[in-house]
């Protein structure tokens, strides 16, 4: 399937990406080509076929609700781009 420039811009918004005009243009072509190729799947009749999410015969995996050691706060925060007083810092979200 061909994809429109508007669709690409909308998907970028959903994916939290900001793309330049030039990249939108290029992705419109490239994604269109890929999706046209993927349309090949419609040749197959899958009306009565069940989808497979993953191959193992495992459903819910539960564990006992036990407390165990977690990571040190300082160690976790050491990878944060900005942190202060033991917290991750984000821009103000509540007016």
């Amino acid at each position, binding site marked *: 399937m061909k*994809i429109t420039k508007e*669709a*690409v811009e909308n*998907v*970028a918004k*959903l*994916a*939290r*990406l*900001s*793309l330049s005009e030039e*990249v939108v243009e290029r*992705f419109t072509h*490239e*994604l269109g*080509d*890929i*999706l046209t*190729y*993927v*349309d*090949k*799947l*419609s*040749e*197959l009749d*899958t009306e009565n*076929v*069940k*989808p*497979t*999410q*993953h*191959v*193992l015969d*495992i459903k819910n*995996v539960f*564990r006992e609700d036990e407390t165990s050691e977690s*990571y*040190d706060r300082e*160690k*976790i925060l*050491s*990878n*944060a*781009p*900005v942190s202060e007083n033991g917290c*991750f810092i*984000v*821009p103000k*979200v509540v007016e």
Partner: protein
Amino acid sequence: MDLNKLTLHEIKNLISKKEVKVDEVVAACYGRIENIDDKIGSFLTLNKEDALRSAFDIQKKLDNGEKLGSLAGIPAGIKDNMCTEGLKTTCASKMLENFIPPYDATVVKKLKSQDAIIMGKMNMDEFAMGGSTENSYFKKTRNPWDLERVPGGSSGGSAASVAADEVIFSLGSDTGGSIRQPASFCGVVGLKPTYGAVSRYGLVAFASSLDQIGPLTKDVEDCAIVLNAITGYDKMDSTSANVKYPDYTASLVNDVKGLKIGIPKEFIGEGLNEDVKSAVLAAAKKLESLGAIIEEFSMPMNEYAIPAYYMIACAEASSNLARFDGIKYGYRASNYTDLLDLYKQSRSEGFGDEVKRRIMLGTYALSAGYYDAYYNKALKVRTLIMNEFDNAFAKYDCILGPTAPTTAYKLGEKSENPLEMYLGDIYTVCVNIAGLPGLVVPCGFDSKDLPIGMQLIGKAFGEGTLLRVGYTFEQNSDFSKRKPSI
């Protein structure tokens, strides 16, 4: 004697007989890295100080007569998408350029518990997305057999480092062929284990229903030894299979008499390079002469494997990579207006083109109105592909075919066209879709003297059969022994 040129089992033997010391082996590998890695570019990060300390500690234990692990003193390379405590893990992305994991991935922990030496972190395509290692944010890796050519990908650094004798073995990850194709391009042995056989705890996720970690080694015996060390149930990975794992070295028998091996017609048809085809068919003949029963059969569903794979892999990737938001870890843009803009700017500046392309494709396939037509359709086709494998394994002990349609190509040759790059995965993605094991063993050279690897595909948890066939082939040929003249 150049210790770095030996196999894992040879070094293991020498160390246990006290004919060589661990620090000599480690020094030989670092010496090699210093000599040639500016040409090859396998490594993103070296772990030299820590590795030398480990070597010293292990040698001391050895001298004291303490019991050591199965990989005692063996230098290993780790693909840079597996977390190593205190050692940078970048996924070859600007997004994780400064990320220092607070913990070891289960596989890394397992290697360390067997006394392996972690030499450093290996280059790859960014977030394991690509087939040439050209998508690394940091540098290109070159094929040791011809420096003008790619090592394959995405585990390109892992494969090149083993081929160039910089490490004795390495770990890679394989979502659609990322261990097997570089193994083929670099002339080494590579195994993608059964889905669930090796824990992914601490592996930066690309496509969770497809990703597997596996070894890249100099021969099949080494592959079995490393596999023994990394398989096993792990409660930290909810997709880990709680089954009994055998001793894989018990499968190293030089005998294929009576084994039934199927070759899918579709794997040796149109689009396959002639040199690769003749090498793979010659390997089949060789196995036949050793007593295997070889038959051709048809797998018509394989032509749908690539489109199904790219829908599933990209959908899962778009979801997995949503975690990179510029807040908890990873790159944060310096200019933004509000929280939403912080996400957008950080992700747009932190991810490379191929990663963005796949996030876009996956987001599209999962979005309202397209979910059924693309994602769900692909999951149904996945069922059909699995059924086809089930039928094949009712008749055959394993499947034999090529790994990639060509040998290693030149840098820049395919990087312009994403779809063309995706088509290179034609013989490998079906194996991930069905969660099966796939073993690549060197089986020849093309007219330019570039290595060719054959691919053996087995039943789920049938690694033993693959190792047996691979081992028998290797004992009766010498392709694994040839080395690049770098």
